[in-house]
């Protein structure tokens, strides 16, 4: 209906946003009527979300006109921010920023470069930045999950780890079962989402391509490519993070660092 009134795409999108906001406000009033008062939170969230996403759109409009090299600079910045976020999740582990940065940069970076080289990702900024950021976000999630789980495993197995050290094991051997458990745990959600792809959910890229009028099989295959890439990058990022952290929690004299133990 809206497209009968608005010909200009920006005006049409603004009108669509207004309808979506009205829908959310309607939900807010129904909730308030039912005694669930979230008016302030909902209004702030709507406003923030709108301003943030429009600002990103405006920035992307500017960036998309820049040189291709700019894409890689932006992705590098995203990796640093992602590592900072993963570091928070790994609070209490030594050297968490460096470990997460290596995990994300080596895992995410190698997949982005390989896939760009192979022609799966178009090096044009309009595709490199959104797909690259998706890969980085997923490597961040995988690294965070792996580090969080690794920390839990280490803290609940301090006795076993120190027993292994006391028997003359090298630190990597002493923590190997826990690093493996952490990587496995971080991959399970990725494997599950690949397994249920198309049955339980139709994910974002495919939805977007279908909305943009692409042929469904083409959209489906590209979505599969993305999901397989996400699985690969998650595995790489969590494996690298867990391996590096397995080294970082020991002193040069092969002792478990005190802040892990206590």
């Amino acid at each position, binding site marked *: 209906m809206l497209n009968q009134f608005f010909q200009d795409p920006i005006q049409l999108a603004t009108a669509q946003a207004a309808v979506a906001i009205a829908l959310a406000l309607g939900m807010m009033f129904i909730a308030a009527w039912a005694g669930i008062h979230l008016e302030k939170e909902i209004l702030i969230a709507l406003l923030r979300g709108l301003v943030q996403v429009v600002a990103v759109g405006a920035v992307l409009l500017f960036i998309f006109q820049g040189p291709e090299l700019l894409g890689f600079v932006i992705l590098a910045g995203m990796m640093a921010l992602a590592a900072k976020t993963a570091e928070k999740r790994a609070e209490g582990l030594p050297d968490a920023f460096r470990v997460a940065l290596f995990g994300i940069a080596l895992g995410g970076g190698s997949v982005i470069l390989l896939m760009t080289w192979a022609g799966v990702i178009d090096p044009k900024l309009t595709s490199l930045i959104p797909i690259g950021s998706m890969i980085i976000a997923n490597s961040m999630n995988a690294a965070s999950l792996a580090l969080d789980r690794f920390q839990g495993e280490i803290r609940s197995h301090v*006795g*076993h780890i*120190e*027993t*292994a*050290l*006391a*028997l*003359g*094991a*090298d630190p990597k*051997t002493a923590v190997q*079962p826990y690093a493996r458990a952490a990587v496995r745990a971080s991959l399970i959600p990725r494997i599950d989402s690949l397994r249920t792809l198309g049955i339980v959910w139709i994910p974002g890229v495919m939805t977007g391509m279908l909305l943009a009028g692409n042929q469904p099989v083409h959209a489906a295959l590209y979505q599969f490519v993305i999901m397989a890439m996400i699985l690969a990058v998650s595995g790489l990022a969590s494996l690298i993070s867990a391996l590096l952290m397995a080294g970082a929690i020991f*002193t040069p*004299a*092969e*002792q*478990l660092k*005190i802040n892990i133990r206590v």
Partner: protein
Amino acid sequence: MKLETRDLTRVHEGRAIVDHVNLAVATGEVVMIVGPSGAGKSSLLRLLNRLDEPTAGTAFLDGVDYRRIPPRELRRRVGMIMQTAHLFPGSVADNVRFGPRQRGRDLSEVEIERLLSRVGLSGFGDRMVDRLSGGEAQRVAIARALANDPEVLLLDEPTSALDDSAKAAVEDLLSEIIREESLTCVWVTHDTAQAKRMADRVLVMQNGRLQMTS
């Protein structure tokens, strides 16, 4: 092997949990350390196989500064038995094999059986560790430590988590093994009667310091 410490100290969060400890244990001697909880007994043991780093001072094995011995080699020579067995998941034999395997040596079935019969667990090799009693688990931990051929044995309240009958049996077993192998021992306990039964020498530790000898 002779074990000595010189002003061995560990400071944690501004407090000396082990405070200038000077200790000399002769080859084959059993030194028991008693003292209240929090006195620093376990912290001292952890310094002796370098699971923790001394803040000051050092230890000597047969006159060699232990910081010059690679940590894995040091820990093979200075074995440790803790209060809890901390057995690794798998079979009893897997646990006994663990130490030598770290140096690339695979124990034969015969060697494993010999170690197990040494601790009174003949025929237990294929048993899964989650099916052992507390006393049996601690015996496996002893066999696992002996598999490394240690020259010094550090014992951190090895019988305190066991019931009375298992406690007496494990104590007898340790006593026998220590004498037969002439192991140099530092044994930490809060049980003064046990200390008197087992020791060549009893030392008292309080506030991180070794207080007196008897």
